[in-house]
Each structure stands twice: as C-alpha cells, then as structure tokens.
C-alpha cells in the first residue's frame, strides 16, 4: 500500500461510482464523507513510518508509486496539505446538494482533486503541467453541461488555461539549463519570463481574468466557485514548488517586487471592477480576483514571514467563496436572475441566504471581526512596511470592493414595496449558510484556531521556510 494510492488512486477510482446513487443528497453525503475521511487520514496516519500492529506484524505506508517510469511521491511533509485540500473539498461536497449540483460536482470534483494532488506529487515535476491540463479538461463538463451550448466564458477559460501549459513546459526545460549554467543571463531571462507568463495564465493575472466574470454569468455559481477555489490554490502550490526547488529563483532580487506589483494590480483592478457591477455573480468573480491578488501579496512577503501569511489566507478565502457561491446558487435555483434590479429587497425574503452573501463579501474585503480580516491585516501591514505607496493602492482596491459590498447591501434591503420578514430556502440551505456565517465570525475573532494546520503547512516547502 502506498500513500499515492490512498490520496490519488482511491478518489480517482471512487469518482465514477459516485454517479450511481439516484438521490443528490446521498451523492453529496458520500462525497463529503470520503473527502473528510481522506483529510482525517492525512492528519493522523503516518507515511513512511512502520506501525506495529502485533508482535510479529507491522505496516508501513510507502510514500511513492511508480507509473510508466514516472514517480508519484507523497511525503510525510505533504500530509498537512492533503488535510487542507481534502478537508475543504469535504465542505464543498457537503454543500453541493443544497446548491443543486451534487450529481455533477461530486464525481467530477473528486477526480479533479485527485489529479491536482497528483500534479503536486509527480516526479519529474514538470509533468504537473500536463496533469493540471487534464484536470482543466475534466472541469469543462462541470462548468458547462453537455446539453448546453458552451458560452464565451468557458471557451476563454479553456484557452487561457491551456496557454499556460506550453509556457510552463518551456520554462521548465530552460530552467534545467539555468541550473547547470547559472551565469547565462540570457537563458535566465527567458526562463523567468516564460515562467511568469505561464503563471499569469494559470492564476488569471490581469488582464487574463476576463473568463472569471463571464463564467460567473454562464455557469452554476457553485461549480465556478469550486473551480475558483481549487485551481488558484493548486496553481499557487505549484508555483511554490518552483520557488522551493530553484535557489536562483528564490534569491531573485526582483521577485518580491514582481509578486507585489501583480498582487496590487489584481486587487486594484478587481476591486474597481467589482464596485460597478450590477450582477451578483460577476461581483463574486471580481472578488475572487482580489483574493488571488491578496495571495500574491502574501507570497511577496515570503522572505519576512516565510509562508505564514500566504497559508493564513487559505481557509478564510475558501470559506468565503464557499458561502458566497452557495448563497448565489440558492438564489439562482429559486429566483433565476442574479441581476441587481431583480434582487431588490431579497434581504426580507431570504434573510439568512443574503446575510451569507453579505458576510462572505465583507470577509473577502477584510471587514474586522470576519475571517478575512486577520490575514488581510497581516499582509497589508507587511506591505506597508515595504512601501506605503503599494499599501495605499491596496486601500484603493479594498475601498472599491467595499463600494461593491455596500451597493449589494443597499439593493438587498431596498425593496420597492414594504415587505414582511420571511425565511425562504430549504432548511438545509439555511443551516449550511448559517454554519458558514458562524465560522466566518469565529475565524475572524480567533484566527489562532487555524494554528495547528498553519504551523505544519509551511514545511511542505522546506527551502522557503528556512
């Protein structure tokens, strides 16, 4: 038995079987339980350490698996990362039934996660680009059901994500040369430029994020939310893998400045675009652009904070996207349109759902008391210490996103006619969103609850954490 078989093989094998149950809530429950089991196993079960079962019998979970001459290695240091990925995936799967998309999201999502975990573990690691591309192709039926004609968003998503692959493969090929000949400045320039372009496509850096708002209009908000949580997270881990592996890249003088500039650009443009949206889905799309920006900013501080600031964002951002996209899915299922003019006064018809939406939005922009506040405060402070001008631009982005939140709030409470309070939506939908709000508040007040995970996560990238 090997670790890759458990955390990659089992989910891949089980994912087709998750199509079998006829009831969506059973699929969601099974998917959630499997993901949760894998998360708990990753936290408690030691890899590559013999476990004594009896006096004569012991068991050891091997850390590698060889397939077609390539190795997939999951080391003990990777276990917190697996816990995080499968733990958060469990939350997404449990909520899938309430969002009305369990039948598609759980089986496809499970296989996407397994592939993306494989992309982080494959050796030589350049094969990761190919595995990521496979995961993206599998995501297409999730975002656009076969019976529906694909829209512009999905096509552009596919184009931009596919364009990332050649850039990354070329840069990897050049990097091998840089390692053997570090003095070759021309080669270094080409490798770094291609790498930057590859990740710009993969992480949807400005102006390559146009597919996000388009997709939010076309597809199920919950499915897009899932992709917007998973893909950037894995892309960031992939990028960290590059940084961890190549010393010259890590020590590259301009790297923090480049990451900071990209982060600020994402926050400012995403925030400003969000301020003027009149579609709730597009608003969320731009907010996830801001999320990516903050992660880039946190990454730019790796020389001071190692990866603490970056990992601090993982849970709050995921939680906010989850609650937000679930709220939007419920509204889509029950009301159809997500346009502002159609959603006036919804606070009185769907108080818990709308509160979920509002709290998620405020958490994304870092309103104190909510989950997004501690990581944003820490990162913003770190950036201010480096350059106050960048911090001021971040303030512009945050203020713009706040404008979007205030506009949403105003639309939700300004009903054209007087309305009585009523709690609509199913019990499950209201409970799940209520629980989400509770955790958003809890993590805002006690970010140290994430500490056990945060202390172990950085060791996945040992060179970056010193």
């Amino acid at each position, binding site marked *: 038995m090997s670790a890759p078989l458990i955390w990659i093989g089992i989910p891949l094998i089980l994912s087709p079987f998750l199509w079998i149950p006829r009831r969506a809530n059973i699929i969601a429950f099974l998917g959630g339980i499997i993901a949760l089991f894998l998360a708990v196993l990753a936290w408690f079960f030691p890899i590559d350490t013999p476990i004594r079962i009896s006096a004569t019998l012991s068991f050891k979970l091997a850390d590698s698996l060889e397939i077609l001459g390539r190795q997939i290695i999951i080391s003990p240091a990777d276990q917190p990362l697996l816990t995080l990925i499968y733990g958060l995936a469990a939350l997404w799967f449990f909520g899938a039934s309430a969002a009305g998309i369990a039948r598609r999201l759980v089986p496809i999502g499970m296989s996407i996660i397994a592939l993306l975990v494989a992309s982080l573990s494959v050796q030589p690691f350049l094969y990761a680009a190919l595995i990521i591309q496979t995961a993206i192709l599998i995501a297409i039926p999730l975002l656009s059901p076969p019976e529906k004609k694909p829209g512009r968003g999905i096509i552009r998503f596919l184009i931009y994500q596919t364009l990332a692959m050649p850039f990354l493969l070329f840069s990897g090929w050049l990097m091998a040369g840089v390692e053997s000949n570090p003095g070759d400045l021309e080669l270094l320039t080409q490798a770094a430029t291609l790498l930057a372009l590859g990740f710009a496509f993969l992480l949807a850096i400005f102006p390559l994020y146009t597919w996000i708002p388009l997709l939010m209009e076309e597809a199920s908000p919950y499915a897009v939310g899932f992709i917007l949580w998973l893909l950037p997270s894995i892309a960031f881990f992939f990028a960290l893998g590059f940084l961890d592996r190549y010393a010259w890249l890590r020590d590259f003088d301009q790297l923090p400045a480049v990451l900071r500039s990209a982060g600020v650009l994402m926050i400012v443009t995403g925030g*400003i675009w969000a301020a*003027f949206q009149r579609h709730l889905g597009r608003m969320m799309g731009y907010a996830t652009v801001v999320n990516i920006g903050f992660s880039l900013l946190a990454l730019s501080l790796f020389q001071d904070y190692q990866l603490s600031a970056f990992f601090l964002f993982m849970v709050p951002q995921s939680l906010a996207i989850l609650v937000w996209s679930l709220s939007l899915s419920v509204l889509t299922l029950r009301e159809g349109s997500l346009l502002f003019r159609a959603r006036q006064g919804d606070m009185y018809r769907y108080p818990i759902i709308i509160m979920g939406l509002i709290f998620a939005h405020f958490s994304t922009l870092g309103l104190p008391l909510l989950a997004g506040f501690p990581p944003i405060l820490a990162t913003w402070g770190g950036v201010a210490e480096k350059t106050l001008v960048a911090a001021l631009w971040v303030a512009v982005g945050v203020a713009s996103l706040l404008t979007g939140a205030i506009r949403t709030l105003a639309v939700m409470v300004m009903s*054209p006619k007087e309305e009585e309070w009523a709690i609509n939506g199913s019990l499950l939908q209201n409970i799940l969103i209520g629980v989400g709000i509770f955790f958003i508040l809890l993590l805002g007040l*006690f970010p*140290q609850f994430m500490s056990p995970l945060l202390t172990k996560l950085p060791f996945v990238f040992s060179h970056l954490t010193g």
Partner: protein
Amino acid sequence: MLILTTLSFLFLGALALLLLRLFNPDFRYSWLLAVTSIFFAWVSVLFWQIKTPLVFTLPAWQPAILFPNSPDFLADQLSWAYAFSLATVGLGTLLTAIARENFPSSPAWAGTLALSGIGILAVLAENPLALVLAWTAIDLAELFTLLASVQERKLRERVVISFSMRVIGSGFLIWASLVSTAAGTPLNFISASKESGIYMLIAAGLRLGVFPMHLPFKTESALRRGYGTMLRLTSAASSLILLARIPYESLQSPFIPYVFVIVALTALYSSWMWFRASDTLDARPYWLLGMASLALIATLRANPVGSVAWGTALILSGGMLFLSSLQNKWLNRLLQLSLIAMSALPFTLTATGWQSADTLWWAYWLILLSAQALLLAGYYRHAQRVKKTDFKSFSSLSRFIYPLGIGIIFFSLFLLGIWGWQGARAIGVWYLGIAVSILTLIFVWLRPRIRSLNPLEAHWLKPNTEEKTKTGRVYGLFWSLYYFLRRLSRLISNILESDGGILWTLLFIILFASLIAEGIR
C-alpha cells in the same frame, strides 16, 4: 478577572433572556433577570476602581510573527469613566423600561445587555485592533437592528449609508496603524508616529459624524426610546474613547489647524440646531455631534481628560434626557439640575473640559463657549418639553422604579465630578464655567422673546438632502463622477470580454513580457 465578571453578567444575562424567550416565553421574571444582571454589572464596574489598572486579554492571535498585537483590554482611569457611564445608562434604560408602552420586551432587554457588554469592551480597548473589532460588532448590531425596525425605502438607504461611513471610519484607524508601522512605530495607544494621528482623528470624526459633517441617522423615531438610546450612546462612546487615546505627539500634522476650524464650526452649527430643534429624539444626532465636537476640541488641545469629561457628559446627560419619556415635578428638576454637571464649573464632571496648556485665539473661544451655552440652553428647553403623561396612571412599582432609573444616571453624573477618575475633584478653568453659565441663562431668557429662535415645525422638517442645497450639489458631483467611472469600467470590460478581447489581452501580455524581461536585465 473583574472585567470578565462584568462581561459575564451582561452576556450571560442576554443569553439567558434569549433562551427564556425561545423555550419559555411565559416566564414572568425576565425584566427582573435583566435588571439584576445589569445591576450586578454596574456594581462590579464600580469595584474596578479598587484595582485599576485592570487588564483583560483574549487568547493571542497566532502566528505571532504576523500579529505583534492581539486584542487586549485595559481598564484605567480614562476608560473606567466611559465603562461606568455605559453601565449606568444600561441600568437606567432597563429600569425605565418598566414604564414603556412596549413592556415587556425581552429581546430589547437582551439587546441592551449585549450592547452594554460590547460597548464596555470597546471603551476598554488597549490597542487599535481591539477597538476596530468592537466597533464592527457595534456597527453590525446597529445595522441589523435598524434594518429590522425601519420599513421605508429611503430610511433603509440611510441606514446603509450610515453603516458605510462607520466602516470607512474603522478603515481610517486601520490605515493609521499601517502608517505608524511603516514609520517604524507599531501603533498602540501609548506611542504612535506623528504621521498617524491625523488618520485617527479622521476615524473618530467620521464615526461621530463630525467631518465631513453628516448625521449618522436622523429619522429614528421608529426605534424604541430605550434600546435606540442605548444603541446611539454606545456607538458614540466607542468612538469617543479613541479621542482620549490618541497620543498627542502624533497630532503634529500641518492639517491640524484646519481640522480645528472644521470641528469648531461643526460644534457651533450642531449646537445651534439642537437649541432650535422641536423634537428631542429627532434632534438627538445634533446633541451627539455637538458634544462630540467639544470632546474632539479637547483632544486637539492635548487634553485627553477633558475629552473624557465631555464624552461622559454626552453619554450620561444624553441618556438621562433621551430616556425621560414621562414627567413629574421632581424628575423635571433632576434634568434641569444635571445642567450643572455640563457647565464646566469647578467640581463638576466637565470641570476639566477647557483645561489645556495650549493658548487659543479669542475668536475660537467665542465660537466654542457659544456652542457649549447653546447645547446647555437646548438641553434645558428639551428637558422642559418632555411629554406630559399622568404619572398616576402607572402602578406603584413603576412609579418607584422609573424615577430610580433616571435618578441613578443623575447620581452618576455628579459622582464622576468628585470621585473615581483622573478628572474628578478638579477646579478647572472656573471663569469659563461662569461665563458659559451666564451665556446659557441669556439664551434661555432670549428664546421665547426672539422669533427667529423659534422656528416653525415645517422649516425644521425640511429634508437636508434636497437637490438645491450645497450638500445636494456635492452629492450630485459625486454621483456624476461615479457614473463616469462606471461607464469607463464598462467600456473596458466590454472591450476585454468581447471576441476581440483575446487580441487585446495578448497585446498586454507582450507588453508585460517585454517589461519583465527588461526588468530582469
């Protein structure tokens, strides 16, 4: 431990009331439970004095490398005065609730207890982090309470605008902390960089509505007098404490003189409006604005004790007046006597209000003393106008408890003048106190005799956001800019999202690639 005891009384009391409401709605002693909780909390706050300074620390935020400060709370001489004032107003609110038309109302009492708890946490905030957390808790409580209680579309819009102004205020405090950190002095309430003070002032000013002068929420008669009063005063107290905490060294910005002018004019304008107002509850924001401006002036003159004096006077005197919905001869006299506490005369609560090492230009004195006198004269007039209800129609218990609620605030108002904190037993600038008292008497005497001091009701009710007013034009300009930016953003979005957008994107990419390559070289 003592702080935790007080908070436990308040939060557990609130929780118990809500649980009883859910599981045993016929429980007959809810009010007694609420009053007992707040009474014990009030007594425990009194006992803080024995052991000040007291510290209450929440579990530290982790990882420590990212969070040098965690939310800590400190009860010292200054914050105690605010905490005691809030506990007193909370006690007064629940005691006077017995004579309200909505009695019994356990959700409102639970809200009062919880608000007292959050308000006390806010005034005890030892660092900006703790303060912004408490501010947001109060803001969210206010937002949802108001949204639940107002029906009209326009009013809901104002609730949202008021909320956004407060959030922006909190944002300025966070920004002050970032600016101070960037200057190499992590912001706390002991030390701050000289660049950050102005942002802290703006934060407090925005939250109090002083600059740009705005009324947080003018039409609030839909709210109940008790809970509504508690909400307003808690919100004000939580912002006022910042004025007492701003280190004076940080107020060295070249903009400070301009801020002083704006605050002085705001004080004069709001006190004038308060003096002329015909409805006490409608005019409540002017009272808050006027007194808060005086507190702000004290801060600008390096007098944190004076700032606390004005702040506590705002809370206690305001609480006394706004909670008074019934009238009898003795209560009326209590309200009028409470004016002494706000007069800046020796051994009163506000005796330290005008103390400062700074000298002031005479014209400023003219404005500021007039503002104070107008506030006092207005208070006297509003105290006279309290609704005349036949006290005898209430039960004997209500007839005893209700005046006790008002009386306990009156007692605290004078207690703070002589005991318990840094500003007690002060002589202050006694001649200014006398001048203000004389000026107040003159205003009170003049009011019925000069017609312009008695505006017609219709004039008072004219909405302040009319298109023709200057404010309306400013708003119009703002909206024009907003629509222009919206059109611009839509244009760029359309270009990038259209079929030709991919080409534009590729163009950008080539541009970025050349920039990156150039940067590497």
